């Protein structure tokens, strides 16, 4: 199955800029469906970006983050060809992970 | 605190009836009244539909009328029907006048 994580990481001088788009419904648990039933909460609780054995970015998400979250950040370090590992875990215990090469 | 008794004036029957008529308290609406008012509103909304310009407010008023009628509140049902009819008539007026008026907005 295709990964839910799209990522692009580019390195310039000593800074790496990372952009990621994650496919996830991010249901808050406050929205009702067409029949009037609450759609149960289903959201990513934690997303982690790891480089060279260290976590460079960790986010604790909740119901305020919208569907298909997009995140962009920069970190010091990283160079072209390095691996960047991204993983997430949601409140239902599901998870996904992917590794991308820094460009 | 003691209750103060007020002396309620007793009106003669004729005067009472006169007052009632003068203040024109409407008689409670019947189901027949509702059906007539609703039919008029529906007809106007159908006409607006032919003109492809029905308003969501009209639909809401009709729904409110139906709901009130189901609950037995025919006064409210008639009031909502009349509101729906007024809205439908306004939408018809809009559609009719727009047949010409649209040209005023056209880019030339």
């Amino acid at each position, binding site marked *: 199955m*295709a990964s839910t994580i*799209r990522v*692009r990481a580019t390195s310039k001088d000593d800074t790496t800029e990372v*952009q*990621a*788009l994650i*496919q996830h419904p991010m249901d808050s648990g406050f929205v009702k469906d067409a029949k009037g039933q609450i759609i149960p909460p289903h959201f990513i609780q934690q997303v982690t970006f790891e480089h060279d054995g260290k976590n460079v970015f960790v986010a604790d998400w909740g119901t305020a983050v*919208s*569907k*298909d979250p*997009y995140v*962009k950040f920069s970190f010091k370090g990283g160079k072209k060809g390095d691996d960047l590992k991204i993983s997430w875990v949601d409140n239902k215990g599901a998870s996904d992970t992917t590794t991308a090469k820094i460009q | 605190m003691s209750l103060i008794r007020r002396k309620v004036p007793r009106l003669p029957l004729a005067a009472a009836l006169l007052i009632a008529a003068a203040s024109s308290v409407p008689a409670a609406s019947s189901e027949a009244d509702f059906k007539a008012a609703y039919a008029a509103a529906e007809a106007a909304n159908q006409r607006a*539909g*032919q*003109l*492809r*310009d*029905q*308003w*969501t*407010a*009209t*639909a809401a008023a009709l729904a409110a009328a139906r709901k009130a009628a189901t609950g037995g509140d025919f006064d409210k049902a008639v009031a909502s029907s009349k509101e729906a009819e007024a*809205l439908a008539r*306004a*939408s018809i007026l*809009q*559609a*009719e006048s*727009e*047949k*010409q*008026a*649209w*040209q005023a*907005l*056209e*880019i*030339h």
Partner: protein
Amino acid sequence: MRPAIQFLSAALGLAALTLGLGDRAVAAGGSDPAADAEAFQKYFTGKFPGLKLEDFVNGPYSMNEDMHRQWVEKEEFPPYDFSLDQGKEMFSTPFKNGKGYADCFPNKGIGIRQDYPYFDQKEGKVITLELALNRCREANGEAPLSYVKDDMAALTAYMAFTSRGKPFDIKIPDDPRAFEAYQDGKRYFYTRRGQLNFSCASCHVQNPGERIRAEILAPALGILNAMPIYRSEWGGMGTISRRFVTCNIQTRGVPLDPQSDEYRDLEYYLSYVSNGLPISGPGARP
């Protein structure tokens, strides 16, 4: 007193005559679509002299500097990516009978979005891409897709993507019915409707770049070029049908059925007057 009464009766008479013409509005005489399109494009380029013609396809994002910055950022990682992938997969998956979308369209369905809608002279009606896709499905034993839901949006997203950069090339054949469809679309566009008494033009001709509540309004020029769009407000993809329906609801007008005559004619008009502007779909909007 007398002249006033005469005037009043004359006015009433005229009104009666107008109403007596039936439900069709009076068309503006002497209309020429090519002249319309030229005037249309001139109006918007005149209003926004800093923009190139092709910039208009970005809708609200071209209307000011802040919006433009947001667009540049969004394009780096567009939210429609997932829908586009789904659309590509849908397009390439054969029907149960073994045939595919490629069999229904010229050039196997690739790079053709800029030719839609077209006027079908055999049937005497406007055919949009969405309608053509469902007809393809039904002709091959598949159930039609809802015009306002994700699947149709994904499919049209992929087809738009294969046409990226190609200019709209809508044709009005020399056929009075085609001209009438174009005119119908134009009339619909400028006609006020709904309890809020807005026409499409009220927002997209009179107020592009201005705000309606928290939204910046898009210009009508090029407004369909980015369709279908991932709209953050919807939290997902939406088709042209979906947008027409929701716009009607927003003016407190009861929407027509998706792909009804008026909507197809409207799409025909709006696409035609944007001839020459490039397809940029699928797009993203606030």
